[in-house]
């Protein structure tokens, strides 16, 4: 899932300066399950904003709604009519959701209420951890299911650096060394020998370095109909 976290309330209030009536829009997918932008978080933020602005002045009118997914036009187009009465939209979606709302409603100011952190999952109740950087060329099949791109600070391809100490990374002793995990996983699988082969440099053109990325599935595209 995409993991996000609410911005400091002060930062959101600052971005709302000059607005009178706004709609807080949640998202029922990734940010809902990491408790950052679901229905309940929309209610909590809306209440907080009304209170924060109401203490010293006229409270901001903050109405609440939530869509199943902000990152698909088919879901957010249901706001087409109701959005007209608002000065601005406060999005509790990830960065993708915020941009889809901005594209759909170009005449409205969009305020992002969350900071999108990473792709990951919960490791225990209340804790989420990064697992994927979307490098575009997954190598988990050869690393025992442990990602050296997202879990190694140096994104090393051929074993740990000299900073691996007692199975932990030198940048933080709470962070396990990814290559230690890879070694242990491959050992359990009886595949240690494969790690002795030197990996060639990774092709980063499939990652962010290639600019805006796009996935195209021709079989799913709408067929072109020729005029008769």
């Amino acid at each position, binding site marked *: 899932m995409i993991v996000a976290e609410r911005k400091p309330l002060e930062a959101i209030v600052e971005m709302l300066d000059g607005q009178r009536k706004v709609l807080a829009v949640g998202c029922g997918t990734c940010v809902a399950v990491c408790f950052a932008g679901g229905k309940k978080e929309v*209610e*909590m933020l809306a209440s*907080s904003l009304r209170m*924060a602005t109401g*203490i010293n002045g006229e409270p901001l009118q903050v109405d609440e709604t939530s869509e199943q997914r902000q990152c698909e036009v088919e879901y957010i187009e249901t706001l087409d009519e109701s959005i007209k009465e608002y000065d601005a939209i406060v999005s509790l979606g990830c960065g993708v959701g915020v941009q889809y709302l901005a594209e759909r409603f170009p005449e409205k100011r969009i305020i992002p209420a969350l900071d999108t952190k990473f792709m990951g999952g919960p490791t225990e109740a209340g804790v989420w951890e990064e697992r994927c950087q979307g490098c575009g060329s997954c190598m988990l099949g050869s690393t025992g299911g442990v990602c050296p791109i997202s879990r190694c600070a140096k994104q090393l391809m051929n074993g740990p650096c000299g900073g691996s100490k007692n199975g932990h990374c030198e940048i933080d002793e709470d962070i396990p060394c990814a290559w230690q995990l890879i070694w242990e996983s491959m050992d359990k699988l009886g595949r240690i020998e494969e790690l002795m082969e030197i990996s060639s440099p990774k092709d980063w053109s499939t990652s962010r370095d290639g600019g805006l990325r796009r996935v195209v599935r021709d079989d799913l595209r709408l067929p072109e109909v020729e005029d008769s």
Partner: protein
Amino acid sequence: MTQTPEFEPQIVAFCCLHCAYAAADLAGGSRCGYPSSIKIVAVPCTGRVDSLHLVKALEDGADGVMVAGCLPGRCHFQTGNLYANQRVEHVRALLEEIGLEAGRVRMVNVSAGMGVQFAERAKEMAESIIALGPNPLRARRAGSPPREIAMEETN
């Protein structure tokens, strides 16, 4: 020097049926008074109390919110009071962000047999809220009808 007359605070107290609610009952039965400003809401366990309940009570004008649960380690559902305490701390931090005093929300722990202690905690809560003064949002809400809250909102 004129003294500002004391206001009577409105304090919502979410009380666990297994302990604090019974303690409040015992306090009353023992003729052990506590401030009438404490408005008790019975809950099956303080673990049922959501952060939203606390925030919305304040948004709707309560001057303070008290969550009264079982003694640590004595929760009827094992850990409900511990969850409640974490939520209270979360909301206290949020209140500071909002610009309200964290002291408007407080967690207390009593057993069903601690009627006297419940009354003491309730008095302390009322005194501290009187010292903080009225919820500034309450004054703004004066005259406006109470907001309708659907329970499913917080489920």
